[in-house]
């Protein structure tokens, strides 16, 4: 074995100082399934003497019955942590590993190679300064190599090391190495990496890991570890425009009001003027507070508490910057999204978006195109599936402060969260803000909803019926309409018959089309209610997300979700239009209750039990409850 990476110094004070002053390099390893990523990391840990006696013993025990290298050790066992992975012999999640040399501390994200775990690779890449792209010398550049490289560029990893592994298995052939490197460089040229170094390596045997290998005399470049120790990845974040996302308002007593957060970029000093992104109000930094004492200035990466010279309205999520170099502030922007959920993304659906310390409702308003992660080809799309990358326009409920991801990853990277399950569904990088959104302000008319409602003598609202086909929604809506109209109220019913044949006749019955169908209906309902009408909407509307969307579109209008709860057997027995029979016969696809799910409301405003009461009784129950 080559020289160990470091030797403890006997001069304790000096050694400790050295430990304290080391820099940090975060990198990730990616490559396809059998390229030997885990083996490479295992080798790094082994060579840096981080494999301790008890771990080595347990490693040798576990290496029994496995394919091993010369040392009788399966290095990959060191990093493949979860039982399921050990059983399947693959890496399925991001594992973080740590090692250090005399010069640097390293945090390694070991990420999976399979296509279905693209999301985990993006996760690992998001905090990495550099990436090792592994290639099996016998196989060359593969589809997965291209996919990983594209994701690296999407996430903005600037430095790449092309590790041509298993070079021993091609007899240390220079021509093989040169061919692979040439092919990769040609492919990676448009991806915009700042540095790209190619190194021939055998992780199993240790060639070109710590020092140049005698087996590759034709290779004149650096060995892997020395290269990682010395490469300069600092973006000099302190030289960029100042950004300070306020994380927490620090208010221990009436005499102290500070704003805690981490300097995302740039630097700030006492006496500097700052601008609050949301209000555009200025203030001057009076103190930079830490427990170790006040600072004169704070650079990028420091977690501090700022005290300003005046009372200004600032809360969590606000971003402080300097006048003249402010972040964008808009409610619409273009972004690239990586989808990470089994449930596809649809335009029109509402999600929670988190960027920095800001969390806000957001909707994909336009799906521009999908990028094939293997070929980089761009194609039209109506939805984004798991592990797909798409370019979209997003609209948020209120304007937010952000930068383009290219200029600032910490203020330009966001996640999308499901409003019901709270799962992280996707991640995105902002390309640019769409300024036109800022100019779009609603005209305030003198004649408003209140005026129109008063003229009609009623309070406009939306009553949204949901339930299976044949559950009795339309029958109840009709009876209610008749009764209220008789009382002099003005109503309108929106249902499949009058919407599907006109406004929405361009829509089919796929999930994407159903989402759009509901969105349009909800918008029309809102306009009608705004015009002063009481709107009854009678749609199966099987998905919680869309009903929630409808409620959101309604805004401050009264919105009552009425669930006509009639069991499937009863609906199917009624079958007023013969649709169930046709669905069962396979003549109608995506029929709710048969081959498409109905998500019952969790908290409807009112439940009508369609199997227990006559339609007239149901209409009475609703009438009594509504108190119109």
């Amino acid at each position, binding site marked *: 074995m080559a020289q160990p990476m470091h030797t*403890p110094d006997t001069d*304790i*004070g000096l*050694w*400790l100082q050295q430990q304290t*002053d*080391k820099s*940090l390099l975060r990198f990730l390893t990616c490559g396809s399934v059998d390229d030997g990523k885990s083996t490479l990391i295992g080798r790094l840990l082994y060579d840096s003497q981080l494999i*301790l*006696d*008890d*771990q080595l013993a347990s490693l040798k025990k*576990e290496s029994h019955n496995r394919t091993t290298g010369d040392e009788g050790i399966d290095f990959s066992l*060191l*990093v493949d*942590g*979860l*039982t*399921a992975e050990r059983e399947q012999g693959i890496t399925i*999640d*991001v*594992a*973080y*590993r*740590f090692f*250090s040399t005399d010069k640097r*501390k390293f945090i390694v994200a070991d990420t999976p190679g399979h296509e279905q775990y693209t*999301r*985990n690779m*993006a996760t690992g890449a998001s*905090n990495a300064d550099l990436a090792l792209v592994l290639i099996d010398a016998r196989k060359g550049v593969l589809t997965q190599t291209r996919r990983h490289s594209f994701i690296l560029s999407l996430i903005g990893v600037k430095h790449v090391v092309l590790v041509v592994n298993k070079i021993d298995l091609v007899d240390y052939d220079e021509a093989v190495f040169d061919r692979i490197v040439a092919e990769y460089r040609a492919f990676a040229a448009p991806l915009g990496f700042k540095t790209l170094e190619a190194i021939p390596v055998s992780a199993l045997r240790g060639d070109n890991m710590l020092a140049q290998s005698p087996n590759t005399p034709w290779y004149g470049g650096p060995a892997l570890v020395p290269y990682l120790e010395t490469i300069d990845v*600092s973006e*000099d974040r*302190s*030289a960029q425009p100042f950004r300070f996302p306020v*994380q*927490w308002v*620090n*208010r*221990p007593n009436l005499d102290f009001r500070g704003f*805690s*957060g*981490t300097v995302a970029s740039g630097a700030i000093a006492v006496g500097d003027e700052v601008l609050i992104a949301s209000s555009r109000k200025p203030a001057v930094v009076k103190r930079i*507070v*830490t*427990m*170790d004492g006040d600072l004169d*200035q704070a*650079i990028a*990466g*420091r*977690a501090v508490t700022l005290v300003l010279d005046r009372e200004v309205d600032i809360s*969590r999520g606000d971003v402080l910057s300097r006048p003249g170099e402010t972040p964008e502030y808009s409610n619409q922007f273009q972004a690239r999204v990586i989808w990470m959920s089994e449930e596809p993304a649809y335009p029109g659906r509402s999600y929670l978006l988190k960027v920095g*310390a800001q969390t806000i409702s957001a909707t994909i308003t336009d799906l521009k195109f999908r990028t094939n992660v293997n070929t980089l080809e761009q194609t039209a799309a109506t939805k984004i599936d798991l592990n797909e990358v798409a370019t979209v326009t997003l609209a948020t409920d209120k304007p937010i402060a952000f930068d383009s991801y290219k200029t600032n990853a*910490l203020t330009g*990277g966001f*996640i999308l*969260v499901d409003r019901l399950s*709270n799962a*992280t569904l996707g991640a995105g990088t902002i390309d640019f803000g769409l300024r036109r959104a800022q100019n779009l302000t609603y005209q305030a008319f003198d004649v408003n909803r209140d005026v129109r409602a008063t003229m009609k003598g009623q309070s406009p609202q939306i009553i949204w019926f949901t339930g299976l086909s044949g559950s009795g929604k339309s029958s109840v809506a009709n009876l209610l309409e008749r009764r209220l109209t008789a009382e002099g109220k003005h109503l309108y019913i929106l249902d499949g018959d009058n919407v599907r044949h006109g406004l929405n006749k361009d829509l089919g019955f796929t999930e994407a089309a159903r989402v759009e169908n509901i969105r349009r209906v909800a918008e029309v309902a809102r306009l009608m209610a705004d015009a002063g009408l009481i709107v009854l909407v009678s749609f199966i509307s099987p998905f919680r997300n869309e009903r929630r969307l409808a409620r959101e579109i309604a805004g401050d209008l009264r919105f009552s979700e009425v669930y006509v709860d009639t069991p499937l057997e009863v609906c199917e027995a009624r079958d007023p239009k013969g649709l169930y029979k046709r669905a069962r016969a396979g003549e109608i696809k995506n029929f709710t209750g048969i081959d498409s799910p109905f998500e019952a409301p969790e908290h409807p405003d009112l439940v009508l039990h369609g199997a227990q009461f006559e339609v007239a009784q149901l209409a009475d129950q609703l009438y009594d409850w509504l108190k119109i």
Partner: protein
Amino acid sequence: MQSQSLTHLQALEAESIEILREVAASFERPVMMYSIGKDSSVLLHLARKAFYPSKIPFPLLHVNTTWKFREMIAFRDSMAEKYGFDLISHTNPEGLANNINPFDHGSSRYTDIMKTQALRQALNAGRYDAAIGGARRDEEKSRAKERIFSHRNANHAWDPKNQRPELWKVFNTRLNPGESMRVFPISNWTELDVWTYIYDQGIELPSLYFAKPRPVVDRSGTLIMVDDERMPLEPGETARMEMVRFRTLGCYPLTGAIRSDAADLPSIIMEMQASRTSEREGRLIDSDSVGSMEKKKQEGYF
């Protein structure tokens, strides 16, 4: 002008502070686990820094098995008094009533009842929606894959195959009713980082970490300190005074001491650098079977 980039310790400290602030800002009822060991001591120090000049805006929870080293309890109480944090100590009442102990009931059953179940009781009783812990990814293989904000279902269980993707520092802190989050602010620290930070910041530790003569018995190669009279001695067995210290602190009957002369921080760090065994080896809980920690975590262990 000072240097324009942070050292790795400064970077780790800032990252941890940001995580702690995110917890305080995002959850309604956070709590910080306090186990009195070195990692907890670092966590406490970071929490004080994160919220200064405010006090730590959440309580510290100690799951007391009643078998901790006596000095740990004294140290815990002195810290609470010195820094004025809100301390909650919880012991599983059924376990206590049934006198569950590591000698009669075996380490795995004892750990389950007095630690895992006790922890669940305390978290349920406090209706805590976020529990901050001092686990690090370098400790053990399944920890290496855990998120910093690690989601738990209503039964406090971890689903390693269904973890939320965690990108940049944009943490998804949202929960449904009954669910909770475990948060690990020092995930990216190594054991050496912890020690050098303690040295750099002058953080106080229980003296059990430092070598001095202590009464120990040798149980199949593991040195167990006789901390009180409850420790059953085998016939003819007597405690011997030996120069020992502890690399981790826990329940004294389950925590092996190592022979050492390292009586101050620099000596400990040097000794650790030269040593060839990992710190969890002294804990009897991991060695049951391959994957045992992962299994415990799925059941709700920290």
